[in-house]
């Protein structure tokens, strides 16, 4: 957690300092996109390597899937309605 904040925080600081430099910003945009792909690939890797996940998936995967869909649906629904009534933000 502290390392996460360190990297994130120093990024924010750097971004703030270089906000006028369009070239850096567009370079960072491209790097960010490819880093997302790299991260997703490595995350997938770590899941595929994890025996506990792979072994238990057929048995427990259905239950886990239903729970996660329920949690996500509920979160999005409540947040959506709350943002309409309380936050008065133009969401769409």
């Amino acid at each position, binding site marked *: 957690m502290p390392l996460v904040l360190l990297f994130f925080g120093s990024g924010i600081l750097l971004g703030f300092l270089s906000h006028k430099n369009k070239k850096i910003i567009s370079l960072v945009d491209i790097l960010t996109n490819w880093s997302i792909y790299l991260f997703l690939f490595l995350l997938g890797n770590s899941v595929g390597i994890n025996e506990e996940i792979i072994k238990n998936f057929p048995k427990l995967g259905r239950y886990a899937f239903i729970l996660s869909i329920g*949690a996500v649906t*509920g979160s999005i629904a409540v947040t959506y309605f709350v943002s309409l009534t309380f936050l008065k933000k133009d969401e769409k």
Partner: protein
Amino acid sequence: MLPEIMLQIDFSLYALYMLLFLVGIGIGSEEQAWVAIKKLNIEIIVVPLSVIIGTFIGVIIFSLFLPGWTLKESLAVGAGFGYYSLSSILITQISGQTLGVVALLANLMREIFTLLFAVLLVKYFGKLSPVASGGATAMDTTLPVITKFAGREYGLIAVFSGIILTILAPFLIILILKS
């Protein structure tokens, strides 16, 4: 097939650090993000609270289709809010390995779902939806896709909401399982 070293070290963590550094630059350089801070006040409480309530309502409804599991078990898994590492360890300690693995799978799925579908979520359910979907992961792993598809000005609410849920997750899990 993979080189041996990739089987031993989890490089995704380093990729995440690098990614968050880049995302930080993106947010720090974005004027709208700093403007958004001033509007934050009540959102900081309302958004994570909505995620908590929404998660529990959703789990309660969907658990009606799952006769083999108790409501308490399902709610505890939901209370991970995507935080799969801590929730699975904690739940294993209290309820045993089976539920612990379910917690791992369910919360991992929540994170991966947010990562893969953030663009569709923003399109159909608004810019706050991936923040809601990501839950505790909105502070780090899903932050990049949130800022990419909802906009950098949502980076800060994502981080704050994610942090609050990350902190509350273990307390809620224990509260649910020990009640």
